């Protein structure tokens, strides 16, 4: 697994630092997948994340909640270095994936993004056919064989619970699908590169309740095999689907707990105020 990230061996593993965070009792079995240490992030002069240290467990769903502008999406986008494409941004601190510092000079961003897939708030299928959308990732990674591509497309669409609906029209334009189908197509497209982490930035916020329920079921199934980090502004959604919940406020990680604990017995006053709807 680690060999897929092109990194020099002199990169020190950061796992020992994980002891610093008290591991939550329910999930001690799951090893840490992603860790951040003192992560700060700047848009120009404007600091939007302040010293965020977080441990994200493997094969679990971690929800990031908080009011608009609290930095939860920015935090999510540091994990696959999507913020790199925005000009004038700066990051300090560390983000590691399986102990490897993903912001180290030797890291190949393309390889990183192949392992860390992403689904966006607004579904963004390419104006191509359904097949071509899903096959895009494997194709740019160099896969040419038609048979292999067809297998990947079928497997990914099945995992995204879309195969039955589109199997007879794989060559139709992806833009002809409904909003909920488009979002599941985007999930299938992200799964096609065979990642082990899936980042989701409010994936259901633009969908109707029925489509939202489908996406939530899907997330529940996917956590068998994937580490999922999901940003949501919907607290019911966070409590339904996640194992861990992190509450962000004004760029700071206020608290992170197993989801049940956070929603029933929050430690911090601000968390309680937010989850009881006093602000946000």
């Amino acid at each position, binding site marked *: 697994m680690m060999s897929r990230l092109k990194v020099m061996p002199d990169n020190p593993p950061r796992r020992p630092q994980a002891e610093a965070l008290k591991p939550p009792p329910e999930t001690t079995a799951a090893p840490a997948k992603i860790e951040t240490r003192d992560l700060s992030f700047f848009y120009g002069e404007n600091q939007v994340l302040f010293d965020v240290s977080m441990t994200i467990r493997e094969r679990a769903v971690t929800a990031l909640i908080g009011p608009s502008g609290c930095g939860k999406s920015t935090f999510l986008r540091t994990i696959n270095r999507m913020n790199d494409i925005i000009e004038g941004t700066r990051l300090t601190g560390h983000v590691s994936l399986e102990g490897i510092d993903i912001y180290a000079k030797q890291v190949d961003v393309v390889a990183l993004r192949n392992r860390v897939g992403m689904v966006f708030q607004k579904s963004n299928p390419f104006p191509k056919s359904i097949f071509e959308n899903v096959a895009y990732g494997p194709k*740019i990674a160099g896969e040419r064989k038609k048979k292999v591509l067809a297998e990947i497309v079928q497997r990914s669409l099945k995992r995204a619970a879309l195969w039955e609906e589109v199997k007879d029209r794989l060559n139709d334009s992806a833009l002809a699908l409904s909003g909920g189908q488009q979002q599941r197509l985007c999930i299938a497209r992200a799964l096609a590169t065979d990642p082990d982490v899936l980042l989701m930035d409010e994936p259901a916020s633009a969908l109707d309740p029925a489509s939202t329920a489908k996406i939530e079921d899907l997330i529940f199934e996917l956590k068998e095999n994937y580490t999922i980090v999901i940003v949501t502004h919907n607290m019911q959604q966070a409590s339904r689907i996640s194992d861990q919940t992190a509450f962000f406020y004004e760029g700071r990680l206020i608290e992170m707990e197993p989801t049940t604990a956070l929603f029933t017995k929050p430690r911090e006053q601000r968390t309680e105020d937010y989850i009881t709807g006093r602000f946000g």
Partner: protein
Amino acid sequence: MKGDSHLLLRRFSLSRAKEQAIQFSLFLCALLSVVTTLGIIIVLVNEAVVAVGPNAAFFQEVSLKEFFTDTRWTPQFADKHFGVLPLLAGTFLIAGIAALIALPIGLASAIYLCEYAAPRTRDFVKPSLEILAGVPTVVYGYFALVFVTPYLLKPIFQDLLGFDVGVFNAASAGIVVGVMILPMVSSLSEDALRAVPRGLREAGYALGSTKFDVSVKIVLPAAASGIMASFLLAISRAVGETMAVSIAAGMTPALTMNPFRSVQTMTSYIVNVSLGDTPAGSVQYQSLYAIALTLFCITLAMNILSQVVLSRYREVYE
């Protein structure tokens, strides 16, 4: 109370009258360009197809068959021939050379400006490109004649490769017209690339694309129709270009695809005859209108085509 509301009503209708007057005068301004276009079409059709005045129209003296199939264009000779093919060939030879230069370079610079260039670089490169569009076309023609032909074409194609490069030639005209339409291709294509939603680029990067993958495999296909439209508009501009080609390509109506020979385009024929002492009402004189009508139809068709292509692509994202 009653008086107040009366005042209110009067002032209201007065401002409405003013509003209507403004609307009407704006409508007149818009109408002006429509009327001008109609006027041009009427004059062209009147002189070329069906004459209302005392002189016979061009196509009443020269058959459509001769116009489109005769391979000689010799209106000023004793043995008159009115075959438009040499002029069409000259026009499209030059437009073709121009397209060969402007389309790839224009598209490449659009991709660079939109996807690669840092904002500071773009702020410098974009205005410099647009300066090219502001150079008077006569300067381009002169530049072709005194620089491109003697210092670019002759050393390479004549001295090195053994072609016979004339003083007036289609290649030099094509090259400068290409440079002339380059800013148009680049700026319209850039608009098309910029209209591609950010989300598509992000999706591409998130799937492990390099910048080149995103530019070529995602943004470019998504902007294809806008880019096609920019190509068509630029070629239509090249077809209609007059001054530079009159100076650089010469006045020899020749049915040739040899870029190093002198050719005459439809536009330079019009210049040629307009400046000469051709008697009004003669067939040569009427031929101007036939050529102008042909030119008008070609550029109109290309502009309409580009509009159609463009409107199809707007549907995808709105």
